[in-house]
């Protein structure tokens, strides 16, 4: 887990967030692009999880393991849940629902990095 990877993850999430808010403004409901956007975030997060597992197997130490695993699980779940929720949304707010999930991921990525590096309480 590296700042670069977290940077990519949160950058993708921010782009998805802007796209989501945009489709609310445009008055569109959940479409293929929303699904692709959520999938893109999830793909980066899965790569990140793989990097984490490799790092741990090579002896990386976690200062606060329970909190780290909580954040890792949460960050993996949120885009999926937000995406499914938005999929069932018949109004233009579907995009906002995707966007809010993406925003949460963008923020949590940096907290996850802190926990990985053992900096910050």
């Amino acid at each position, binding site marked *: 887990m590296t700042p670069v990877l977290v940077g990519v993850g949160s950058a993708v999430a921010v782009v998805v967030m802007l796209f989501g808010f945009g*489709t609310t403004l*445009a*008055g*569109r*409901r*959940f*479409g*293929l*692009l*929303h699904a692709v956007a959520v999938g893109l975030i999830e793909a980066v997060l899965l790569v990140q999880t793989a990097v984490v597992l490799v790092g741990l197997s090579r002896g990386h130490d976690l200062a606060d393991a*329970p*909190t780290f695993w*909580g*954040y890792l*699980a*949460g960050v993996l*779940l*949120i885009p999926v*849940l*937000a995406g499914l*929720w938005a*999929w*069932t*949304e*018949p*109004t*233009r*707010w*579907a*995009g*906002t*629902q995707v966007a*809010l*999930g993406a925003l*949460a991921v963008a*923020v949590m990525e940096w907290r996850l990095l802190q926990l990985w590096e053992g900096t910050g309480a």
Partner: protein
Amino acid sequence: MPERSTLGSPAAQGAPGAGAVRALVVVYAVFALAAGARATVQLSTRFDEAPVAYLLSAFAAAVYVVATVGLARGGGRGRRTALVAITVELVGVLAIGTLSLIDPAAFPDETVWSAFGRGYYFVPLVLPVLGLLLLSRRPAAQNPPKSPPPKSPPPKSPPPNSPPPE
């Protein structure tokens, strides 16, 4: 099942405010998850350090879960449930926020509501206010909201008895 066009088909109108309330569900679910995970970790790994603060963490998590479920279910009952939970949330964040600043020793480890949710970019302070505003904006689809929805209101009624200018 929604149509799978690239950018999504044009949105349904829906009851005013209902979609926005369901968007709020995402934020509430994130906080239910965050507060719940935090409380679980605190209670299971270091309960003895600050039992009161950690029990408050668990209480906050429960409040977020109830609010999330209430908002997600919608309808009269769901809205009432959410209204109660969000009111408790607002009181909680104000009370804990104030207490944690007056008596920091009682809160050695932060809860979601410490210092008015500073650790969470003050979202815990803004969220209940936003929730109460959105819930009060849609009184059971009876009266139209003060600010009309961006598109045309559902049935375009003919202009009300405007006196003919003859």
